[in-house]
C-alpha cells in the first residue's frame, strides 16, 4: 500500500488525504500514518504551516492568517 501511495505521489499533483485514502481503499488516518513513515524515510517532507512559521515573523500582524492543516511535499 505504501508503494502504491508513493507511485501516486511521484506522478505529481495536489492531493487531499481523503482522496488518497479513497484511491487506496483505506482510511485517512492510515494515509496520514503512511505519510509520516514516508517522511521518516525521506520521501516526503512536512511543510511548516503558517501557524508555526508566523510565530517568528515580525510581519505576522500584517498578514492574513492561514492554517491549511497539515501539508507535505514530495522530495525530488
Amino acid at each position, binding site marked *: 500500500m505504501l508503494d502504491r501511495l508513493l507511485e501516486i505521489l511521484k506522478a505529481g499533483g495536489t492531493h487531499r488525504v*481523503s482522496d488518497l485514502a479513497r484511491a487506496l481503499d483505506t482510511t485517512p488516518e*492510515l494515509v496520514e*500514518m503512511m505519510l509520516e513513515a514516508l517522511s521518516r524515510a525521506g520521501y516526503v517532507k512536512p511543510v511548516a504551516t503558517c501557524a508555526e512559521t508566523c510565530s517568528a*515573523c515580525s510581519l505576522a500582524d*500584517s498578514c*492574513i492568517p*492561514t492554517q491549511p492543516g497539515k501539508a507535505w511535499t514530495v522530495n525530488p
Partner: protein
Amino acid sequence: MSPSAPVRETTVAPLVQERPLLVALAGQPNVGKSTLFNLLTGLHQRVGNWPGKTVERKEGYFTFNNVSYRVVDLPGTYSLTANSPEELIAREFILRERPDVVVAVVDAATLERSLYLVAELLPLPVPVVVALNMMDVARQEGIRVEPEVLQAALGVPVVPMSATRGVGVQELLRTVERIARGDTPYAPRLPQIRLDHQEVLEVISEQVAGYVPEPYPRDWVALKLLEGDPEVTQMMSAALPPDRWEEVRAILSAHDDAQVAVASGRYEWIGRMVRAAVTRPRIGQIGLTERLDRWATHPLWGLVILGGILGAVFWLTYTVGAPIQSLLETYLVGTLAEGARNLLSGAPTWVSGLLADGIIGGVGAVLTFLPILVIFFIAMAFLEDVGYMARAAYVIDRFMHFIGLHGKSFLPLFLGFGCNVPAILGTRVIESHRARLLTILLAPIVPCTARMAIVVFLAPPFFGPTAPLVAWGLILVSMGALALTGIALNRLLFQGRQSAFIMELPLYHLPNWRTIGLSVWRQSWAFVQRAGTVILVVSVLIWALSSLPGGEIERSYLAQLGKSLESAGRLMGLDWRLTVALLSSFIAKENSIATLGVLFSTGEEGLANLLAATYSSATALAFLVVQILFIPCVATVAAIRQETHSWRWTAFSIGLLLAISLVAGMVTFQVAVLVGG
C-alpha cells in the same frame, strides 16, 4: 482478588505455580498502558531504569485467580524498528526474556495507529493478546469497533476494555492465563510482503541460517535485514563470515526498495483489519465537511465558489464600508482640514498647508478607509476560522499545478494576499533554487491587502454599482498575470517539471468570534501604525515637494517630476498627478491615496468625488490596473534583495513588474477608450 475491585490485590496470594507468569505490556504512548499497569499492580511496583539507559523501567507483581503474575511495562513505542532506545528496549526484552504473554494495548479510537506495533509483535516468538482499550472513547466519537471480528481477522485473542473504568480487565487476565497455559488455539495472521520480495526474504533467510546468534529467530532477522534495521544489520555483519556477509549485502543493495515493501505489507494488513472491524459513520462535523467539500474542492465548482465568495466579500465591503468611508471623509477629514485652516489662519501659510493638506489630507485620506479594511479583515478572518481558507488554498494550488507551477510555491504565494514581504520570506520552504527564484519573482504579482484596499477605495466613485465587479475583475487580472508569467517563467527556467503536494484539510466548524476579533484587531492596529509612521512621513514629503519652491502645485518640484514622466503616463491616460501617486506607492502602497489626498487638498467634496469629476472611467480603470500590478513596495524589494542575494534579480523583478503593469495599463486604456471611454 476481590470481585468489586477488578484486579488490584494488596495481599499476595499463595503461589500455585513454579514461577509467576511473565506478562509484558506493549503499546504506543497514550493508549492507557500505564493506567492498566497501575490497575494491575497497585502498590506492588518497582520503578528503575533499563540497564544502561535513561528510560524508565516499571515492573510489578499481582495475583489473580490464584495465579501470580510479574508484569513489565515496556516503554511506549509505535514500532519495533530500532529507531529509538525505547523501541530497542521493548524488542530486546521480548526476544531475550521471552515473556509468557505480551499484552498489546491498543486504542480503539485510533486503531490504525496502534496496529502497526501489533503487526511487528505478531511475528515474534511470543503469544500476543490484544487489549482493545478506550472502547468508551471510541463509542463517544462514533467509532464502532467489533472485537470479535477483529479477533477473527487477527487470529489472536482480542479483549475489549476501558482501563480507566476498570472494565474488561478481569476478562483480559483470564485470556492471558488461557493463552499462557496453551488452552486457547493461537494462530496469528501475519502481515505479508509482496511476492517478489518474499522470494528475496527466503534467500536471505537461507543465507543467514546457522549464523543467527541466540535468542533471535532466523526469519525475524532476515526480515529486519531486508528492512534495513541498523542494529540487526550490524549484528549480522559481525556474525556472518565476510564472504557470506558480502553476498547478503549485495542482495540487500539490489533491493533497496525493500524497506518500503516490508512497511507496505504491514499497512496493507492494518488496512484489512480496520476495514473488517471498524465502522465510522460519517455523521456530524465529518459528514458535513464531506458534503460541503464535494462542492468547495471540486476542480471546477471549487474555483467558481472561490470566485463567488471573493465577489461577495467585495460586495459586502463596498455596501457596508464605502458609505462609512465617504461619511468619514466628508465630515471628519473635511471638517478637520477646515478647522485646521481656520485655527491656523494667523499662522504662516505653509503651517496650515502642512497640517491641513499634508498631514490631514494625506494620512486622513488613508485612515478613512480603515472601516473598509476592517470589514475586509473580518470577512477574511471569518473564512479562515470556519475552515474555508484551507479549501481556497487547495483549489488555488491545484490550479497552479494545472498551469505548471511548483507545488511548494503555493504557501508563500498565498501569504502574498496578506502582504508580499512574508510571501517572499516564506519561499524559504522551497529547497530548489530555481523554484524559489520563480516564486520570489511571482510573489509581488499577488495583490496584497494594501493594493486591494486602493481598489476598494477608488472603484466606487468611478464605477458606481458595478464597482464590486470591477474590483473582482482586477483580482482576476492579477491572477491572470500571475498565471501567464508563471507559465512563461516556468517554461524558461524549469521545462515544466511537476511535484506533488499533499494537504489535510481541517473540518468546518462554527466561527470563534474571539479569534476573529483578535485577528481583525491585530491587522487593523498594524495598519493604523503604518499610517502614523511611513504614510505620515511620505505625506509630509509629498506635500513639501508639491508646495516648493513657490507654493503653486502646478510649478512644484513634484509637478516637474510628474510632468517629465507624463509622456509615458499619457499612453495609459494618466496625468502627472496620477503618475506621481503611482510613484509614491513605491514607499508603501497606501501612499497612492495619501498623495492624491495631498494633491487634491480634500475639502467637503471628498477626495473620491473630486477624482471622479477629474478623470474619465478609462483613465481610472487603467490607473487601477497599473496600480494592482505595479512594482512592489520598497519593503518587498528589500526582501527580494535579501532572499535572492542578488541586485541583478532584484532589478529583474522590478523591471518585469514595471513592464507587465505598463503594458497592461496601456492595453486597458486603449481598449477602454475604443469601447467607449
